[in-house]
C-alpha cells in the first residue's frame, strides 16, 4: 500500500528566462496520503504544484500518473487525469449559486436549475458538507468557499487534490473543520498535496513532508521524523560556499536621525496595527513571508497604494505627519519607492534609458521649466548610466531591450535622480542576474554610507543578512520582531516569520 504511487515527477525542471524555478526535483505522491510542501518564498513550491495541475509545463523531466507518463498542458487536461488544484485565489464565480459552480462547464444543453440543485444537494450530503446549494457563492465565508472548491474537485473524480496555502484565510475553528475534511478525503483514497507556511499545520496534518530550497528538493520524509527545528534547519541551511552574498557583517552602522515613524497602521486585509521606525544612515532589512504586509506597509508610506480599503494609524516623516495621497507628493518630500515589479510599475518600455531617468528628475521638480532640455536629459542620463554601470548599446536604447539587471538599474536610477533621503527597495534583486546583484548591493551599501535611510524589503534571507544593519521581521500584517544584524541568525529570523 505504501508504495502505491499515484503521481510522480522525475528530474522535473522549469526554467523562466534561463532561471530555474524548480531544478531536477524528484517527487512521489502515494495513494491516500497527505503530503505537505514547505519552503521559503521562491523555493519553488508553487511552480511544483502548478506543474502537477497543468498550469505550467516542464522544461525538462517527466511526470507520471498511475505509472503512465503524461504531460498535461492545461488545467483541464490535468483535471481529466484526476488532478485538481484549489488555488489561493478562489476560482469560483461569485455571482452564481453553489450548485451552478459545482456543475460549471458540465451543464447539459438544457440546463435545468432544479435538476442541478437536487443533484448538488445529494452530492454535498454524501460528503457531509453543510452548504446550501442555492446560495450564491459570493455570500459564503472563506471556509465554505473552500468546501465548494473541494466538492467540485471530488465531483470531478479527482485522485489528487492540490491546495495552495489552504488555511491562510481561515479562522481557527474553520481550520479545524478543514483538517477533518482533508482527513475524510484521505479515507476515501484521495491524495492531498498542500503548501503551507504554518509548520505546525504541516506537522499535525501531513503523513509526509517535502522541504524545498532554492528550486531544489532538500528532503522528503515521514512527518513523524520531523520537528519544527529540523524543518527550519532544512529550509534555511545553505551551503557555505555560497559567497554571492558576501560574508556576514562584522559591524553595523549606527542609527542616525529617526526619519520615519509608522504607528498602528491599518489597511484591510493586509496591514494590521503595524508600527515601526526607520533611521538615517543605515540599512533596515524587512523580512517576511508572502502576505506578511511588508510591501503594503511601505506602499502606503510612499503613497503608491490607492486608498481602497479602510485606513487608520499615523505616519510621521521627520516628526511631521505625512500621509501621501499619490506618489508624486512622496517624491517631492524625498521618499522614493523602488518597486518589486518593474515590468508593471517600474519603467517606460518604449522610452529610452535616458528618457526614463529624465522623467524621474522632472517629477521631482513639478514647478520646473515647461520646455524639455535635450542637453539636460542627455547629461543626466549618461551620468547615471555611468554611475550605475548600466550596460546597453547606447543611452538611447529602449529599456525593454535590456537584461533584467540593467532594467533594475534604470529603475533605481530613476528614483535616485530624485535625490531621496528615504529609499525603499522592494525585492531589489528579484529576477536579476548574478553580476548585477553584487553591483546593486554595493550601491545600496553606498547609499547608507552617504547617510540616507535605506529600507530593503526581501523574501530572501541571505539578501537580508548580507545587507541589513537592523532587521525587522514581519508576520501577518505587522512587525513582530526586531534584530540587530549582529545577533540575528537565519534560524532566529525564520522562527519569527512563521507562525
Amino acid at each position, binding site marked *: 500500500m505504501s508504495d502505491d504511487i499515484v503521481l510522480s515527477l522525475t528530474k522535473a525542471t522549469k526554467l523562466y528566462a534561463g532561471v530555474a524555478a524548480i531544478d531536477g526535483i524528484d517527487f512521489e505522491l502515494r495513494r491516500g496520503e497527505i503530503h505537505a510542501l514547505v519552503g521559503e518564498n521562491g523555493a519553488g513550491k508553487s*511552480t511544483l504544484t502548478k506543474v502537477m495541475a497543468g498550469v505550467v509545463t516542464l522544461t525538462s523531466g517527466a511526470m507520471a500518473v498511475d505509472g503512465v507518463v503524461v504531460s498535461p498542458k492545461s488545467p483541464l487536461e490535468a483535471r481529466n487525469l484526476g488532478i485538481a488544484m484549489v488555488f489561493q485565489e478562489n476560482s469560483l464565480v461569485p455571482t452564481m449559486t453553489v450548485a451552478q459552480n459545482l456543475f460549471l462547464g458540465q451543464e447539459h444543453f438544457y440546463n435545468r436549475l432544479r435538476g442541478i440543485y437536487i443533484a448538488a444537494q445529494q452530492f454535498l450530503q454524501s460528503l457531509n458538507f453543510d452548504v446550501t446549494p442555492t446560495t450564491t457563492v459570493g455570500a459564503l465565508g472563506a471556509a465554505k468557499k473552500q468546501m465548494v472548491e473541494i466538492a467540485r474537485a471530488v465531483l470531478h473524480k479527482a485522485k489528487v487534490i492540490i491546495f495552495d496555502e489552504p488555511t491562510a484565510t481561515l479562522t481557527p475553528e474553520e481550520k479545524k473543520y478543514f483538517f477533518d475534511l482533508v482527513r475524510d478525503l484521505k479515507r476515501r483514497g484521495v491524495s492531498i498535496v498542500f503548501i503551507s507556511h504554518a509548520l505546525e499545520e504541516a506537522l499535525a496534518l501531513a503523513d509526509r513532508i517535502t522541504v524545498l530550497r532554492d528550486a531544489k528538493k532538500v528532503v522528503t520524509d515521514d512527518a513523524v521524523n520531523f520537528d519544527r527545528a529540523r524543518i527550519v534547519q532544512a529550509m534555511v541551511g545553505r551551503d557555505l560556499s555560497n559567497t554571492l552574498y558576501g560574508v556576514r557583517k562584522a559591524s553595523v552602522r549606527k542609527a542616525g536621525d529617526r526619519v520615519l515613524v509608522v504607528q498602528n497602521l491599518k489597511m484591510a486585509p493586509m496591514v494590521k496595527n503595524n508600527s515601526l521606525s526607520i533611521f538615517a544612515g543605515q540599512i533596515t532589512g524587512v523580512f517576511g513571508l508572502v502576505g506578511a504586509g511588508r510591501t503594503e506597509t511601505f506602499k502606503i508610506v510612499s503613497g503608491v497604494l490607492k486608498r481602497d480599503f479602510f485606513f487608520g494609524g499615523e505616519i510621521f516623516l521627520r516628526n511631521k505627519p505625512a500621509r501621501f495621497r499619490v506618489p508624486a507628493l512622496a517624491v517631492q518630500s524625498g521618499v522614493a519607492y523602488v518597486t518589486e515589479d518593474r515590468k*508593471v*510599475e517600474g519603467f517606460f518600455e*518604449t*522610452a529610452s534609458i535616458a528618457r526614463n531617468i529624465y522623467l524621474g528628475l522632472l517629477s521631482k521638480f513639478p514647478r520646473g521649466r515647461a520646455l524639455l532640455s535635450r542637453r539636460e536629459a542627455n547629461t543626466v542620463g549618461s551620468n547615471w548610466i555611468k554611475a550605475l554601470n548600466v550596460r546597453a548599446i547606447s543611452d538611447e536604447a529602449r529599456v525593454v531591450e535590456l537584461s533584467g539587471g540593467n532594467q533594475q538599474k534604470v529603475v533605481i536610477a530613476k528614483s535616485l535622480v530624485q535625490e531621496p533621503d528615504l529609499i525603499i527597495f522592494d525585492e531589489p534583486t528579484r529576477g536579476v542576474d548574478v553580476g548585477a546583484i553584487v553591483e546593486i548591493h554595493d550601491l545600496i551599501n553606498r547609499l547608507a554610507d552617504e547617510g540616507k535611510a535605506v529600507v530593503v524589503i526581501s523574501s530572501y534571507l541571505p539578501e537580508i543578512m548580507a545587507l541589513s544593519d537592523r532587521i525587522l521581521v514581519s508576520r501577518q500584517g505587522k512587525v513582530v520582531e526586531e534584530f540587530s544584524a549582529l545577533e540575528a541568525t537565519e534560524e532566529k529570523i525564520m522562527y519569527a516569520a512563521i507562525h
Partner: protein
Amino acid sequence: MKRFRVTQQEIVFVVFAVLFAAFSILLPGFLTADNMLTLLQNVAVLGILGLAMAIVVLGRGIDISLIAALAVPPGIVLQMVQNGHSLPASIVTALLFAVVFGLVNGWLIAVAEVPSLFATLATGIFVAGLGQAFLFQLDVVQWSPGMEGFQRLGQGAIFGVPTPIVMFAIACVAVAVFLRLTRWGAYTYAIGDNPNAARVTGLPVRPIIILQYVLATLIGSFAGFVMAASINSMPTRIFNSTLIYDVILVVVLGGIGLSGGRGGVLNVIIGTLLIGTMLNGMTILDIPYAGQNLIKGVVLLLAVITDSFLNPRNEETAQQGDI
C-alpha cells in the same frame, strides 16, 4: 540587436504612394489642380480632428465626443451672433464651453476612473443633445451679418495656400511642440506607455489626463471653427454621421498605437493623406455611400489588427515571474 522591422507608418506611406499613383494614372480628373485643392481642403478638418484624437490615444485613452466638440462650440458662436451678441464675446463663451466640456471628460476619466470610451461616449451624446435641444434654433446654424471676418479662418488662401491647409499646418506645429518639447508632452507619452510606472515615478498622472482631454476638446473645436468658416454655417447634425470613425481610422492607420505611448504628429499626417486620397478617389469613382463604408470598414479592421500585431499590450507577459 539590429533587426529589420518595417514600421506601420512606412507601410501606410507606401500604400498611400501606390494609391495616389494608381488614381493619378487611372482616374481622369484626379490629378488636376482643382481636385488636389478639394482633396486637401476636405482632409484639413479631418486632420485637425486626428491631432486631437492623437493626444488622448497617446495617453492610452480615446475621445468619442470629439464630434460634439467640433459641432457645438462653433454652433454657439454662430447662434449667439445671430441673436445679436458680439463676435468676440461669442467666441469667448464658446471656448469656455469647450474647456468645461474637456474638464468634465478629463475628470470622469482621471478621477472617477470611468473607461474613456464610455465616458466620452456619454458626454458626447449629452453635449450634442444639449446643443440641439436648447442652444440652437435650427439643425443647421446659419451665417449672420455679424460674422464678418470670421470666414477668413476657413476661406481663401494665405500666401497662395488654401486657408484650411494652413490651419492644419498650424495645428500640427502646435501639437508637435506640445508633444515633443514640453514636459507635459513627455508626461503624456509616459502615461500612455505605462500608467502605473508614471504614478510610482511621481508624475502628476491625473492632472495630465485632464489636460489631454481639455486640449483634445479645444483642438476639436478649432476644427469646427475652420469647418464653419469654410462652409459659412454649422450643420450640427454632423454628430450623427460616421465622421468619428474616420478620425479613428486616421489615427490608427497612421500608426499611433491604441495601446498608448507610440507615434506622433507625423503619423497623423500620413494617416490623413491616405484617408483623404482614398475618400477622394472613391468619390470620383462614384462609389455609393454604402460601398464607401464597406471599404472604410475593411481598412479600419486591417489597421486595428496590424496595430495589435505590431504594438501588443504586454501586461500579460509581465506576469511570468511568479515562482
